[in-house]
């Protein structure tokens, strides 16, 4: 092999090694950071027969049950119930709830399942729209794909 080819081979293999390393790192990081989306009934009854394990990170989307929001009088701890078609799960959260968090409204919470029907959330999202329902939930409830329930109203930028 002449020296120039050898150098090229070296450069190409260096690039390949870096790429392989990057891809495997990326896939590993990805597998660590996927949050599956569940509805309350899927948490209780299982999603395609699989009930999420306690300790699993997940996202849950549902409607806040009327009258279920309980606040601690001294701290910012809050808990509320979520439902979709029947089963209810409880979500605990410490911090400020989003502007549009309201009873009867659809929200999405990300957190860890701490018991079979309790989630300790580290993030609670509600959309800046009165009639908003999380698209994942709308899809689950209505079986319609890619249709935002607030299609007629101007959406966010």
């Amino acid at each position: 092999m002449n020296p120039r080819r050898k150098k090229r081979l070296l450069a190409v293999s260096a690039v390949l090694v870096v790429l392989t390393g990057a891809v495997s790192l990326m896939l590993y990081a990805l597998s660590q950071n996927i949050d599956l989306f569940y509805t309350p009934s899927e948490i209780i009854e299982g999603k395609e027969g699989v009930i999420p394990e306690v300790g699993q990170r997940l996202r849950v989307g549902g409607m806040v049950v009327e009258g279920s929001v309980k606040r601690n009088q001294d701290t910012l701890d809050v808990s509320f119930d979520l439902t979709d078609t029947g089963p209810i799960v409880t979500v605990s959260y410490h911090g400020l709830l989003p502007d549009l968090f309201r009873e009867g409204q659809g929200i999405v919470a990300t957190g860890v399942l701490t018991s079979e029907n309790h989630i300790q959330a580290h993030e609670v999202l509600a959309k800046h729209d009165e009639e908003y329902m999380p698209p994942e939930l709308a899809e689950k409830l209505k079986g319609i794909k890619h249709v935002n329930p607030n299609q007629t109203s101007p959406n966010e930028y």
Partner: protein
Amino acid sequence: MLAELGNFALVIALMLAVLLSIYPMWGAYRDHDKMMAMAKPLAIGMFLFTAFSYFCLTYAFVTDDFSLAYVANTSSMSLPIYYKYTGVWGGHEGSFLLWVLIFSLWTVAVAIFSKGIPTKMVARVLAILGAVGIGFYLFMLVTSNPFDRLLPFYPIDGKDLNPLLQDFGMIIHPPMLYMGYVGFSVAFAFAIAALISGKLDSTWARWSRPWTIAAWAFLTLGLALGSWWAYYELGWGGWWFWDPSENAAFMPWLAGTALMHSLAVTEKRKVFKSWTVFLAIAAFSLSLLGTFLIRSGVLVSVHAFASDPGRGLFILGLLVVIIGGSLALYALRASEVKSDGRYQLISREVFLMGNNVFLTAATIVVVLGTLFPLVHKELGMGAISIGAPFFNQMFTYLIVPFVFFMGLGPLSRWKNQSPQALYKQLLIAFGLSLAAALLINMNYSEPSYMAALGLVLSFWVIVTTIMEIHQRITPALSQGMGVVASLQQLTRSHWGMVTGHLGFAVMLIGICLVSAYSVERNVRMAEGDSVNINNYEFVFKGVFAHQGPNYSSDMGKVEVFEDDEFVTTLTAEKRFYPVQRTTMTEAGIDSGFTRDLFMALGEQLKNGDWSIRIYVKPFIDWIWAGAFIMALGGVFSISDRRYRMAKLNKNKGKKHSQGEQPT
């Protein structure tokens, strides 16, 4: 009536785009000068008709013409007048009109400012822009026409502009962003024109470079403005959320940054030619992909427009045609491209290649992280989301080698760099940056390793940049020139690079310090309560009612003391917009050189207390300042004399010196 004229003008603009895509291309093929000369007037016409159409829509906004569906959805009578002007791009249809307006503006700019480039090349470039324009105009007229009427039954008052968009940041963010997005279509057109002509030489790279840098600078500003807006308007105090729409704009930025550097190599050294062409295609394709993701509503995001599968399908079609077509052409021609330059393993070429590899890797990370949930869902494996930790982790890994190369590249020579000389410099640079980083990091009571790492990286960039300048002016200095004079010798584009890299370092400092040393407290406060963060004391003064033009608001006041000395009063608002029945948070921020004090109201609790966010964010403004400096670097680069040289050279035939000085 004017709205119909606006619509008509759009149709004419579409027709002009069709003509523009045919005549000059054909003329270039047949060597027909007159046909090629058609390009310029056609481009100007396209711009004028689009501008007229844009004027018509603005007029409809200002005159509260709610018979237009778009106006009724995005404006209202009580909307302040300046938001009526900017509300034109407050929704999907109007923002796309702004998009095509900016597109036609770029096209005209190419037509006007390309005097130094051969007519044939300009004709091809404009023809390709025309072809891309056909897609844009058709999309507009078919799926999202802002001039659709609600006749005969139209509302008396509109639904109001989304309160999130009633803000200064939002006024300038979209135009800047679109300038960047659409600007890559010019880089794309140059690349395709060069592929068609078969002449992929360094002159092509020189012509394309200022356009690419301009687009990149606009995109940088657009992204920074968006981030700044999110920081003060969303009330979470964050500056980047890895939201799909942010990613959508970040992907072309990464590809564009790679393209900008690769173009430099192609221009100077005539290598990486096919890679550069590929990047030009990729940057524009990613712009379109981002548009598709946001405007089709397939991804859930704070930016999502009302979703419409028809629109998504159209853009997807456009994407397939453009990417497919250009890649096919690329495959056909790329094999003919031969690199003339030779270079060794330790050379600037290789280091710039390294930079490109990592930028590409970063692009892939963002694309993957953004599209994976979509693919996962479409495959029937359930809805998932990929959190910010994924991106943060990946970018932490990627930035270390990337910044390493960033320091190495400018310091080394083209073709062949002696490792020994470089090694010495690097050791000094590393020592200096390590020392600087540790010294700064020691100031914090709980030093963090990540912050130390980030600071080392930032100072690495700064130190190597200064070394590079020193290295450049050494020959002049040894000839007895003064420091200022020898600094003035450096070209503008060189200063562009220096400024750009320093801007990146400034941004990096901001990012690592704010990530490591932000203090965030969510507290529950009654009037008179106070909270201590570092040596700041925040005293809650209560909430007062306030009436705005189209909203009512609760205004919370917090007085801040530093070591018992009064600093400022932060005023945060909780606004209620009755037309959309929406509540909005306006954060109260005191910006400073080394820290921001941030306060946002949560909600009133049952016993009258308020939940409040109080943050101290060190060096956060450096992030946007850094982005601004980077964009400024772009401006320096474009203003380089070299890009006007072609024009001068042409005139040289007439034997006019034109003030050309030896460099």
